[in-house]
C-alpha cells in the first residue's frame, strides 16, 4: 500500500492516496447510484471507510518493511516492488467496489414493494390458487408478491412441526425445527430456482419473483392436505386429498405456465417437471412422518398383524399421540 517511509520509486506517489480513489480508471459506483436517504447503506459505507483507514495504516507499516527489502535487491527488486504495489492498489479498489456493491444490493429495502398488500388481496389470491384457469392462449397475470408465499411456507413449517410432534418423530442429526424449516424453504427456493432456470431454457415469460410467488401460492393445497391428514389418519382419505387438492393447485400452476410458453415441447418439459415435483413433494411429506408411527407400533405388538391393518389407521377421531401413549403404557405393563 501507501505510506512510503523513504525515497521510493516514482510510482509511490500515485499509490500514496488510494483512499480518495483518485486517478482510478475503474468506474466508481458511488457516483453512479444515488442512494441517499437509505440509512442502512450509509452506515455500511461509514463502517467500510473506517475499516479501510485502519487497514491502510496497517498496510502502511507493512509496506514500509517491504520497501526496504525491495531497495536492497536493486533493480529487480524495484520492478517487483512496483508490480506489487500496483497489484495491491488494484486489489484494494476491487475490494472496495465489491463491498459497496454488496452493501447496496443486500439492502433489505429492495424487497419492500413485494410486501405491500391488503388482506383482501391475499385472501383472493389464496382462493384463486385452487382454481385452474381455462384460457391458456393468453398470458395469465401473476401477482409478484412475496408476503402470501412466505406466510404459506411458514404455515407449512408449523404444520410439519405439529405432525412431527404428534407422530413422535425422532431426528438424530439435527433438530425438528431445523429439519422442517430446511425442507420447506429448500423446496420453495430450490424448486423455484430450478423452474426459473428451465423457464429460461424453454423461453417462458416469467420472472424469478413471479415464479417464487406462483410456487408459494401452490403450497396452499399442500397446507390444507397435510393439516387434514395429519389429524385424521385414513390412508384412502390422503390419496383423495392428494389427487383432488394437490391436483387442483398443480393444474393452476401448470395452466399459468402453459399460457406463458410457446411451443409444444417446451410446454411439456416445463409442466411435466413442475407437476411431478409438486405432487411428489406432497407424497413425501405425508409418508416421511407416518412411517415412524408404523415402526413404533410394529415393534410393540410384534410382526403378527399385517401393517395396513394398524389400529391407528382405523380409528378416525382419537388423536395419534394419545394412541401412542396408551399403547406404550400397555406394552410397559405387559
Amino acid at each position, binding site marked *: 500500500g501507501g505510506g512510503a517511509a523513504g525515497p521510493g520509486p516514482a510510482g509511490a506517489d500515485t499509490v500514496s492516496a488510494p483512499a480518495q480513489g483518485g486517478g482510478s480508471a475503474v468506474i466508481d459506483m458511488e457516483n453512479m447510484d444515488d442512494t441517499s436517504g437509505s440509512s442502512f447503506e450509509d452506515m455500511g459505507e461509514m463502517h467500510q471507510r473506517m475499516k479501510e483507514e485502519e487497514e491502510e495504516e496497517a498496510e502502511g507499516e507493512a509496506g514500509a518493511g517491504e520497501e526496504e527489502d525491495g531497495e536492497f535487491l536493486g533493480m529487480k527488486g524495484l520492478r517487483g516492488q512496483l508490480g506489487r504495489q500496483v497489484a495491491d492498489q488494484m486489489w484494494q479498489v476491487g475490494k472496495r467496489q465489491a463491498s459497496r456493491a454488496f452493501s447496496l444490493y443486500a439492502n*433489505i429495502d429492495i424487497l419492500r414493494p413485494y*410486501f405491500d*398488500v391488503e388482506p383482501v388481496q391475499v385472501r383472493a389470491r389464496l382462493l384463486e390458487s385452487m382454481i385452474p384457469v381455462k384460457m391458456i392462449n393468453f398470458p395469465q397475470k401473476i401477482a409478484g408478491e412475496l408476503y402470501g408465499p412466505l406466510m404459506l411456507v411458514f404455515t407449512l413449517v408449523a404444520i410439519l412441526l405439529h405432525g412431527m410432534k404428534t407422530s413422535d418423530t425422532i431426528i438424530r442429526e439435527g433438530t425438528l425445527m431445523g429439519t422442517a424449516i430446511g425442507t420447506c424453504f429448500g423446496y420453495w427456493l430450490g424448486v423455484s430456482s430450478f423452474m426459473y432456470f428451465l423457464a429460461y431454457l424453454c423461453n417462458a415469460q416469467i420472472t424469478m419473483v413471479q415464479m417464487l410467488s406462483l410456487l408459494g401460492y401452490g403450497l396452499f393445497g399442500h397446507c390444507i392436505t397435510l393439516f387434514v391428514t395429519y389429524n385424521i389418519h385414513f390412508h384412502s382419505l390422503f390419496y383423495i386429498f392428494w389427487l383432488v387438492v394437490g391436483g387442483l393447485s398443480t393444474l393452476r400452476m401448470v395452466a399459468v405456465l402453459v399460457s406463458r410458453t410457446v411451443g409444444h415441447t417446451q410446454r411439456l418439459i416445463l409442466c411435466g417437471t413442475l407437476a411431478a415435483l409438486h405432487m411428489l413433494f406432497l407424497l413425501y411429506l405425508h409418508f416421511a412422518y407416518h412411517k415412524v408411527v408404523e415402526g413404533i407400533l410394529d415393534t410393540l405388538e410384534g410382526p403378527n398383524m399385517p401393517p395396513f391393518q394398524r389400529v391407528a389407521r382405523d380409528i378416525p377421531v382419537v388423536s395419534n399421540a394419545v394412541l401412542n401413549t396408551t399403547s406404550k403404557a400397555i406394552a410397559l405393563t405387559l
Partner: protein
Amino acid sequence: RPYGGYEYPQQGAFVPPDMMQQQQPYTGHIYQPTQGYTPASAQSFYGSNFEDEPPLLEELGINFDHIWQKTLTVLHPLKVADGSIMNETDLAGPMVFCLAFGATLLLAGKIQFGYVYGISAIGCLGMFCLLNLMSMTGVSFGCVASVLGYCLLPMILLSSSAIVFSLQGMLGIILTAGIIGWCSFSASKIFISALAMEGQQLLVAYPCALLYGVFALISVF
C-alpha cells in the same frame, strides 16, 4: 394520560434544566438504557451527593407503573392501545415473562429454556424484518422484542395449565387455539397502533400467531 406530557429525549436532545428540577412526577425521569445521551446530562446535574442520587430502579430504567400499564393493555384484548406506549423499549418486563414461561415449563417437567431463548430470538428477528418491510416508518428491534415479550403473558397461563392437566385432548386444543388468538391479537393491536398500519391487522396478526403457535407447541408436547 399516563404517557403524555413529557417528551422522552429520543434523539439525544439536550434536556432543559427547568425540567430537571421538577422532581415530583415519576414518569419524567426514566433514563432509557438505550439512549446514551440522557444519563450523562442528568447525572451531571445531580452531582455526586449521595442524597441526590436517583433511585436505583429509576436509574436502571425500570418503571413498574409503565410495566403494569403495558401488562394491562395486553390482558384486555378489547382495550384500545395507545400508540405512544412503545416509544420506550423496555426489556425488563419481557425478560420476566420469558423466565416465568420457562419456569412454568420446568414445573411441568420440560427443561426447555434453550428452546424458549432460541425461538424468541429468531422470532423477534423475523418479525423485525417483516415489519420493517411492511410499514412506512421503520421499527426498531427493541420495540419489536418488547411488544412480543409482553404479549407472551397469556402463553404463561397456557403452560401453567399444562402442569395440572394434559393439553392433548379436545379441551386442550380449544384452550391452545384461544390463547394463541389472544396473544397474536394483542401483539398485532399494539403494532398497528404504534406503526399506523390501518387495515393490515390481520396481515400482522398471522405471523405473530405462527410464532406463538410454536411456543404453544413446546408447551403442549
